[in-house]
């Protein structure tokens, strides 16, 4: 396994063709993923680093996820209620908000917020370690950078994303509930509507999405960080690319996941 290829490209060819760049990206990401899965299954677990990352990805992201989700739930309710109440459909409002949150908005908002907060930080940290030879120092001390840096972040991401997704759901529904009362929809009607229109699988499917998003965001950010080159500017580029690529891939994956999970139900 040529796992060192991931960080051995200090002076790698600057490919001119778009196809070359895409192939290099897919190849590097795949190699890193294979190495990470191997590290996940066997090898020393860096518990301390993992707990640290769980706190960073999970606990410190929770407030911003709660805030954005609550307001998103509120605005969905604002639109649906102002429309539905006019035609006497107030009892659909809770269902509409909760369904939108569970299937789409909670996972996507979690993905966006964590990319912005943690994906960028991961790429910047690993990128800085790369250009200041700290990655080489790890290897020189016979410690695999994948095992020490990537695997703990991946485990932390896979554990914390569904949790954040669930919190986002709750916050969104709560935010919507507050707005609903302004349209004279009682909390009882709101909750009853959720019960009627939302199935457990809508919620579970949304959490499955967050697992895939976690995989994308953590792997892309780690890969961009580890392949950073060329000083402070290089770290900046790596960070930007990590965020942009993570977001784009999350949105693309979201479509296919929606198709696989919900479209045929």
């Amino acid at each position: 396994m040529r796992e060192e290829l991931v960080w051995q490209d200090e002076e790698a060819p600057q490919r001119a063709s778009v196809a070359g760049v895409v192939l290099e990206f897919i190849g590097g990401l795949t190699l890193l993923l294979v190495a990470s899965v191997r590290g996940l299954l066997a090898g020393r677990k860096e518990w301390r680093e993992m707990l640290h990352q769980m706190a960073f990805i999970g606990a410190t992201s929770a407030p911003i996820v709660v805030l954005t989700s609550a307001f998103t739930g509120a605005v969905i309710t604002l639109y649906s209620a102002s429309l539905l109440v006019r035609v006497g459909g107030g009892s659909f409002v809770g269902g509409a908000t909760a369904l939108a949150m569970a299937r789409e908005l909670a996972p996507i908002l979690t993905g966006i917020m964590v990319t912005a907060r943690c994906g960028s930080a991961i790429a910047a940290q690993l990128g800085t370690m790369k250009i200041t030879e700290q990655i080489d120092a790890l290897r020189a001390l016979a410690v695999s950078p994948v095992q020490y840096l990537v695997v703990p972040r991946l485990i932390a991401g896979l554990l914390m994303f569904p949790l954040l997704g669930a919190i986002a759901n709750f916050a969104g529904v709560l935010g919507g509930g507050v707005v609903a009362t302004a349209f004279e929809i009682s909390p009882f009607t709101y909750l009853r509507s959720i019960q009627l229109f939302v199935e457990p699988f809508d919620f579970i499917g949304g959490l499955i999405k967050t697992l895939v998003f976690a995989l994308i965001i953590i792997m892309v950010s780690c890969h961009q960080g580890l392949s950073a080159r060329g000083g402070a500017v290089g770290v900046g580029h790596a960070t930007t690319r990590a965020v942009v690529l993570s977001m784009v891939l999350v949105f693309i994956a979201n479509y296919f996941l929606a198709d696989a999970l919900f479209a045929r139900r």
Partner: protein
Amino acid sequence: MKTNSTDAILVKSLVYAVNGTTILKGVDFRAAYGEIVGIMGASGSGKTTLLKCIAGLLRPTAGEVWIEGVNIAPLSEREKMPLRLRLGIVFQYAALFDYMTVYENVAFGLERHRRLPRSEIARIVKERLAWVGLEGVEHLYPSQLSGGMRKRVGLARALALDPHIVLFDEPTSGLDPVNAYQIDRLIHRLNRELGLTAVVVSHDVTSLFRTTDRIVVIDSGQIVEEGTPEAIRQSEHPKVQAFLRMASTESLEEQAGI
């Protein structure tokens, strides 16, 4: 050049090419046990690349790199891991883990490769820091240290796992003469007291002349001269002469022959 049991490091016809540029063009190099070998050359001559190939951090395009009788050139990252413990590397800018204290930096390798009680690790860390002349800095972060102190912590970290060979990448660059002198003395002392084999990559002529047993001069990816510091000083190779002349303390007028 044949394999000799006294060679700690033996490099044969090493080629390293990347991006269509050949950085090392068939380099032969050896370091006997207990020897301090200097690799001298200008920036961009390929001396750090040679060091990283010896360290197993870069994979050579062609050639062999024997470390204590094992050719590491064709090995995978995984296979190289146990061999890395025989080598210590001191990086140019120390490359200390910046989110860890000095103590955690030095203890890092010990905690992962040696099954030792906490108190024993603490003892080794304290001892290694004492070797490099640092005491009472365990709780500080790298950003709170001066350049010379950082290099010494880097050396303490490299020494933690009792390597047989230590590779130094520009140990004195960016240091004032006093700190540079101290680092040189440290390299010399570790070699004499612990029998460490040392490879020192540098463009600091003064430092190389006073520390090393033997110097190889590298230019554009090729070894152009090799010998004792005295022999290098007397060398008539034009590249070596030019390099030494420019490193000398003569004024520019004197050098121009005015």
